[in-house]
């Protein structure tokens, strides 16, 4: 052993440095080739333009949502600085703020919990992937347990939100979300306790998550931040009903 150490010490330092560097180089080349493998398989003439288009549309969507939030802020600022500032106007503005808050158009924070739901790593097949149904179930159970606001990977859940499957990922508010999914909720201090007492939640964990090998973890947090809903609130078909109209 001491002879080997002696021989290594006898080597010029540059050779040792180069050997280590080449070793790392070889490792990285192998890793790079391995990483390129799947990409080569999808970069066919058919799919590559589709991926480029989808990426372009996603970038557009992010910019459009940012513009909406910016415009809503500008409108809120203009509404807040009315020169009249009469009492009736202040009341009207307060009602508007309350409506925006109730509608999910304002970013909120508070105590709550965050779930992380991940695909199975030790299993394969469709059941090993988190589905839109799984995310919806968790969201529904959180509402039933008393959550006041929920987001999935930064997309605020509101009355018009649809969560649908797309391949092994999901669409929420038309935004493409890939796993792992973080489902954040603000609610009463005992939100998680209430959830644990829910038969449907226990069935979800024992009947779906555990047998399929999905990974579900939870953290109780002093501060959960939920973004504002950045989608459309325009009504094309529904109009406020005239007063006195009955269903």
């Amino acid at each position, binding site marked *: 052993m001491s002879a080997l150490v002696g021989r290594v010490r006898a080597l010029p330092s540059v050779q040792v440095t180069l050997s280590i560097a080449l070793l790392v180089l070889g490792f*990285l080349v192998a890793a*790079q080739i391995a*990483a390129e493998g799947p990409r080569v398989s999808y970069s066919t003439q058919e799919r590559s333009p589709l991926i480029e288009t*989808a990426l372009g549309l996603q970038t557009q969507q992010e910019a459009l949502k940012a513009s909406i939030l910016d415009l809503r802020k500008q*409108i809120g600022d203009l509404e807040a600085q009315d020169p009249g500032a009469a009492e009736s106007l202040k009341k009207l503005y307060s009602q508007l703020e309350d409506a925006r808050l109730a509608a999910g158009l304002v*970013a909120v924070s508070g105590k709550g919990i965050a779930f992380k739901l991940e695909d199975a790593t030790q299993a394969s097949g469709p059941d090993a992937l988190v589905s839109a149904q799984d995310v919806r179930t968790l969201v529904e159970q959180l509402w039933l347990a008393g959550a006041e606001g929920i987001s999935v990977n930064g997309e605020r859940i509101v009355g*018009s939100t649809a969560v649908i499957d*797309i391949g092994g990922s999901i669409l929420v508010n038309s935004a493409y979300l890939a796993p792992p999914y973080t489902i954040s909720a*603000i609610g009463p201090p005992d939100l998680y306790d209430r959830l644990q007492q829910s038969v449907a939640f226990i069935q979800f964990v024992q009947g779906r998550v555990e047998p399929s090998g999905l990974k579900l973890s939870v953290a109780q947090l002093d501060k959960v931040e939920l973004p504002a809903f950045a989608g459309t609130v325009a009504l094309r078909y529904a109009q406020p009903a005239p007063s006195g109209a009955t269903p």
Partner: protein
Amino acid sequence: MTAPRRPLTTGNRISVGLVAALLGFLVVGQLNAQQAVPGLSNLSATDLTQLIANLTTGNDQLRNEIADLTSQEASLSDTHNRGDTTVGDLNSDLARIRAWAGLTAVTGPGIAITVQGQIGGDGIEELLNELRNAGAEAIAIDGIRVVTGSVVAGPPGGLSIENDALGDGFEIRAIGSPQILTGTLTRTGGVIAQIGATYPGARLTVTPLESMTLAATERNLDLTDAQPSL
């Protein structure tokens, strides 16, 4: 006794420099590969086409929203510049948001779905999710408005919404395009067909309606645990 260390020759320095540069290049390449949009590479051509269709429709809606907001912002600015009060603008904005959130009654065309037989809460939630995806702007079940936080839960025969039990037969009404809503629900392999496979005892019938009125929610949507972020 160790061998004396020789200083690096120019050739050695160039070799080490080249290897270091190559290493840096590969490390960056590796990091970029790992940061590629997750999931997209796993989608089939059919999934990608569906995603593109969804993103395109969603972006069109966002553009319309931006046009509405720009117009609203311009109107407010004009009002301010004239020195007038913004009562009209505020009332209009308030009516729009309250209607969208389910805080006021709304009227419009849409569909009625009668539900009979044995079906679980998950089946009805699946149906509601599909209605939202098809562009339903307001939904009510047996007159109870479905809003943020509303959930239909329970086993077949024991369904409830907002703590109100739903009977053996009930009706779901949705305002939106009657053609789009009907087509989406009833297409081959659509949500009604899927529910039929899961709950063979359930019978769902869709009827387009020219006009309907859906009541405001009675649910309290005021927030007590969540506070506006500063």
